[in-house]
């Protein structure tokens, strides 16, 4: 007699049913769609916020860090520089903050019905990715404007790296987020820590400044932060600013994969019983 499902007490180290996850792909897109259709209900400006939000942030950055503090942008126009950095960083930050509250924010649904739990963090990442695409759209618009008004742009073949970088950032954000998500089922204060942590991480990454401002002797240590090479390569690809040695990006990929696997292992251990502790 063949049985299709076996529910057992102990799970293996890596117990993620990818086939099942794929079967629930429609759910991922419905969650994404739900987020969009409900996010701006009963607001005056509606989806305009998707554009206004990053614009305001970027203008603030350009004013505070560009004008007032006068940080170097390696020759790139201020507005494009911060728009570019903010796109990738806010994508990463949203991935972490959104996925880290997966269990606690959705306890009501998760406690009542089974579906592969990874569906929720994945749909958070997809949503964040779409938000970033909007920012990229604005960036393209701004770059075209610059190009037409005669500012010299350095767009090279490196632009092909953009999708790779987006995927890497998504995976890293997902990994970090689900590690925190797994831990928050037990310790709620990590939720508060996350928003602090992400802020701190931002200043430890070349978001509002460039890596060339870091003293030479700390540089190799500094670039171990997996986001530092990502952002640098990202700006190199889009704005043609100074790049880094490929080895650092390689290390960043290794860390990304390690974090993601740790996250999935932790997540798959917690997801089976988290309802007992939330």
């Amino acid at each position, binding site marked *: *007699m*063949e*049985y*299709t*499902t*076996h*529910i*057992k*007490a102990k*799970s293996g180290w890596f117990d993620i049913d990818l086939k099942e996850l794929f*079967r*629930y792909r*429609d*759910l991922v897109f*419905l969650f994404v769609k*739900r987020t969009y*259709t*409900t996010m701006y*209900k009963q607001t005056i400006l509606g989806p305009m916020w998707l554009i206004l939000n990053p614009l305001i942030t970027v203008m603030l950055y350009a004013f505070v860090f560009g004008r007032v503090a006068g940080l170097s942008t390696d020759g790139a126009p201020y507005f494009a520089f911060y728009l570019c950095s903010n796109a990738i960083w806010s994508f990463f930050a949203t991935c972490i903050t959104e996925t880290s509250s997966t269990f*606690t924010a959705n306890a*009501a*649904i*998760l*406690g*009542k*019905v*089974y*579906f592969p739990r990874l569906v929720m963090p994945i749909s958070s990442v997809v949503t964040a990715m779409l938000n970033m695409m909007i920012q990229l759209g604005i960036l393209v618009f701004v770059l075209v404007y610059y190009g037409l008004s005669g500012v010299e742009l350095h767009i090279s073949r490196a632009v092909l790296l953009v999708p790779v970088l987006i995927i890497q950032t998504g995976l890293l954000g997902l990994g970090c987020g689900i590690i925190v998500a797994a831990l*928050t*089922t*037990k*310790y*709620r*204060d*990590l939720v508060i820590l996350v928003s602090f942590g992400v802020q701190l991480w931002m200043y430890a990454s070349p978001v509002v400044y460039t890596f060339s401002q870091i003293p030479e002797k700390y540089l190799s240590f500094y670039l171990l932060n997996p986001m530092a090479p990502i952002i640098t390569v990202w700006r190199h690809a889009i704005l043609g600013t100074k790049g880094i040695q490929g080895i650092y990006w390689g290390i960043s990929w290794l860390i990304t994969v390690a974090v993601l696997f740790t996250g999935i292992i932790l997540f798959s251990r917690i997801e*089976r*019983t988290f*309802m*007992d*502790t*939330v």
Partner: protein
Amino acid sequence: MSETVIKIENLKKQYRLGTIGGRTLNAELQSWWARKRRKEDPNLRIGEERSDYGKPFWALKGIDLEVKKGEALGIIGANGAGKSTFLKILSRVTAPTEGDIWLNGRVASMLEVGTGFHGELTGRENIYMNGAILGMTKKEVDRKIESIIDFSECREFIDTPVKRYSSGMYVKLAFAVASHLDAEIMVMDEVLAVGDMKFQKKCLGRMGDEARSGRTVLYVSHNMATIRNLCTRCIVLDKGALIFDGNVEEAIGVYRAELVKDDLLLRIECKDMLRRNRLGMKSHISTFEFCDVDIPEYLAGDTMLFSVYWYNPEQIRDAIARITIKTAEDELIATSESQIMHNVGSGDHITRFRFNTKNLVDGMYKLVFSISEINEFAQTELLDEIPQVISFRIIEKDLYKNQKARWIKSYWGNIRLDPMTAEDITV
């Protein structure tokens, strides 16, 4: 038809007392530090024993069960018997601590209808959402949407956000989605306890059809009538163990007996029991005692005699005693009032009550005894109530000799009113 679809072996689930619920890292460190220094843990609830901390509690203590294809299995048991835990494990919301379950086919669990419904989305959007959560693909929903909308009786409002729906419509829509799942195994927890009678009937009918068409249905309920209607087999859980498996009527009998087995008491001392609100101040009941019986069992028509010891610090002008009678499953049936006791002086009282049981039909019952005061505006104010339920049993024998027909409670209720007269006036 005798193919096994669910096979459960030695299923156990353990919870830990005291660690349930999210704690902060800080609290954890505090407790750890306190334990280190053998001081009192600052995070324990007052009155909670330290020894209870982290003490394992078995919600399920080893269940073995096989369910065949096409069976409609009822699961009954008192609160805390482990029914919900059992369903949660079956529907994979939480994992077992020990044991194995093998399933053949998809499981549709309806522990709650309307999971994932979002008020801002329209009925149609929610059908897709809820369907996907329950495991349907978009294509499947596309194929069934017309039938779902028809079943929900909400076609007019299908493109309106569900936050504008009445609660009845909400439930109908949710149930319509759930009932269109193509799962081989359906797991349900009291979902039919909602909606209006007509819709409930429709749902029950649909469930019945499901079972007949070869699906397996597992149904948890406190409502014995739906269990009777729907199920072909029934199991009884008690404190995490399976104590009966088989015929539905017998199972209901076992469940009833189990419910009251522990509390067929003759005498209840309730002087020091905790009262809710501010009861027990103006009048305080200390003892309740059934008189002239060995166990509180009465032949229908017997008079139930009981004494109540109570104390009141001040004189009460007009007092009244009540017994509220409930079924073993806690459904309220009826209430009997004493005559008004005038000018009850301060001090201790022993009062003997007589209650004629002739209107109660065969079965287990619970009663709640209370004393109230009637004030000058003819309003009654509850003074004290025995905080423990008191159980008793009514037995009917020799029905035929007593000129009574067999009574079916599910049709006619627990109270047999005084007989009406029948006089033939045919000319």
